[in-house]
């Protein structure tokens, strides 16, 4: 419904959205050329929080790089932990005890629910509804308490180790998680009743921000953005890692390609994560949580290693080239939102400003992870 073509008078002006702006969730800057209320061109400008994580990976020892994993995507840090652990275990040939893998999956999925909850709340707040954020925060707080009891931190987790996890989970955590799942499941329905069915919200989301599967492929979008465009791609199923193959869960895929589809994928994924956690808790084996023979000084053999996980926002993968010394020769991180947001420029052409920001919110960007 763009009237860009129809408008006779083409008088444009520039608008800087960000780096300090409530809709960008951080220090993302979008340089927009506006034609009235329509967007002529929108260019995301990154780099305001660039911290050179990749370079840090090269000049620190393997173990010293751990804390960085919690500081990329601060909302789903455990998935990033998982990726680094997996990468190095593959390089060093460490076999991880099964209990540790189950704990990794449980915490990673709790973290995913937490991330989607905040994404949901913040997204509705972008659209002007403040209340759902507080509801989501309430639930999120319970997850953070659970994770704090086992990992020791609430946001920037550094919980995994090469060969296992730092801390075994106790009965309190297990009963607490079960209780949480029981409380949380009805809450998803409540959110649907309160928020999804709202006429104004449907008006704002349905048909807004169409993303064809082609454009998703072109820019390498992953995660809920890709699955909202009808492509069934999830690392947990497509390149299974950890103990995911032993668990039964579905990948929600929506074919509408609009903001509503992406929103619904996130909502459904919370339900699926609940299923995963429940099964993992039931199957949780006894045993150690750390592999026995992990050398103190890590020197992975020469070679090129790669590992990918499904973080809350899409595929996170790491590739490292080792030259056999105690730090990396080259470290490369592939973060999901970087690709997801890069398609914004092409997809937002001719959109209304308010629709474009609703669309940006549906990509659920986390800026530190984009800038790395």
């Amino acid at each position: 419904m763009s009237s860009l073509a129809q408008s006779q008078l083409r008088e444009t002006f520039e608008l800087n959205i960000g780096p300090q702006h409530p809709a960008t969730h951080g220090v993302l800057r979008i340089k927009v050329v506006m034609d009235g209320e329509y967007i002529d061109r929108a260019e995301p400008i990154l780099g305001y929080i660039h911290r050179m994580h990749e370079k840090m990976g090269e000049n620190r020892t393997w173990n010293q790089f751990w804390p960085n994993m919690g500081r990329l995507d601060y909302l789903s840090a455990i998935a990033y932990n998982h990726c680094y652990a997996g990468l190095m275990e593959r390089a060093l040939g460490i076999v991880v005890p099964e209990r540790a893998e189950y704990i990794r999956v449980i915490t990673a999925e709790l973290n995913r629910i937490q991330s989607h909850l905040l994404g949901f709340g913040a997204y509705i707040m972008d659209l002007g509804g403040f209340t759902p954020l507080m509801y989501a925060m309430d639930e999120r707080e319970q997850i953070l308490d659970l994770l704090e009891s086992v990992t020791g931190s609430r946001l920037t987790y550094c919980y995994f180790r090469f060969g296992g996890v730092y801390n075994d989970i106790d009965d309190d955590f297990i009963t607490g998680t079960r209780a949480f799942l029981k409380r949380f499941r009805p809450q998803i329905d409540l959110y649907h009743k309160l928020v999804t069915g709202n006429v104004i919200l449907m008006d704002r989301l349905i048909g807004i921000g169409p993303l064809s599967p082609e454009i998703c492929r072109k820019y390498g979008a992953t995660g809920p953005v890709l699955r909202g465009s009808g492509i069934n791609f999830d690392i947990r199923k497509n390149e299974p890692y950890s103990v995911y193959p032993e668990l039964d869960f579905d990948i929600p895929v929506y074919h509408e390609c609009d903001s509503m589809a992406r929103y619904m994928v996130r909502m459904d994924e919370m339900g699926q994560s609940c299923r995963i956690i429940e099964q993992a808790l039931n199957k949780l084996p006894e045993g150690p949580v750390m592999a026995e023979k992990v050398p103190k000084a890590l020197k992975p053999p020469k070679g090129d290693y790669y590992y990918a996980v499904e973080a809350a926002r899409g595929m996170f993968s790491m590739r490292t080239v080792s030259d056999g010394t105690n730090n990396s020769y080259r470290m490369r991180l592939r973060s999901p939102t970087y690709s997801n947001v890069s398609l914004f420029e092409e997809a937002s052409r001719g959109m209304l400003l308010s629709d474009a920001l609703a669309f940006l919110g549906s990509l659920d960007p986390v800026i530190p992870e984009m800038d790395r």
Partner: protein
Amino acid sequence: MNELIRLLAYMLCIAAFLGLNLAYLGWVERKGAGHFQRRTGPKEVGPYGLLQPLADGLKLMSKQLVVPANADKLIYMAAPVLIMVPSVTLFVAIPFGENLVPREFNFGLIMMFAFASVAGLSILIGGWGSGNKYSLIAGTRAVSQNIAYEIPMLLTAINIVMISGSLDLNEIIRQQGSYIWNWNVFRLDKSILMPVSFLVFFICSVAETNRTPFDMGECEGELVAGYHTEYGGMGFGLYMMAEYANLVIGASLITILFLGGWQSPIGILPGPHWFLLKMYFLIWVFVWIRWTFPRTTFWGLLNLSWKYLIPFAMVNLLLTALFIKVI
């Protein structure tokens, strides 16, 4: 001389009433929002946070007024005052009780609309004078919104005028009897579409007061803070207060036109208390709506007005005229 004293007394009373309302509606909104959102709202300053408005006021007043470099200084300073003045003036015409009205104007309704539309102007010049692109976009949005929603509002109000045969607000209330079914909203004998007119008028009031889901002038997700992005200290404070003043006026107008003003719903003890009860109930509904719904788009907002509300208001007007003529 007596008249002068009477007017002075009324002025003082209005100032006091307004001051109390503007301060405490903010508290009501924050407390209400808190309870809608599973938290407590303000509670630190005073019991139940009741002194919070005073603390806020002190803080706002003690802040330095910074005029942005790009701003047009005169317009920038004048806009917040200009938005406050018409809102305060309007209280002169509101009949809180049968005899509790500062000035009975026989054209009170027209005066209400005339002064209310000045608010749109002051939002525009506030946005313009700030020298900020967000403010400017918000200002233009607010104006097109105010124009779009004043039309159906006026058209609906004309229904009432035709039924009552008067523009005098007190007379309009007197015409509605002292039982709930005599209120304009339920007077189906005059026009069967009366409840729907009420709904249209209510929606328009929400839009006129620039509140969520129609807060295009503010739009904090898109336009930072809309027309008052550049305002700090008391400039912002005046905008905030004007919002609540407009809220009181909007609720009063609905009460007068549709809910029988100071008339009692059960036939006993008519008086200002009924007026205030109805008014505060409506304000509570406004607060309720604000913290429940997300914001519409600017596009959807204008669509709603021009494609649905205005045609409906026109048809409604014709039907009412027909009803009055035939019956």
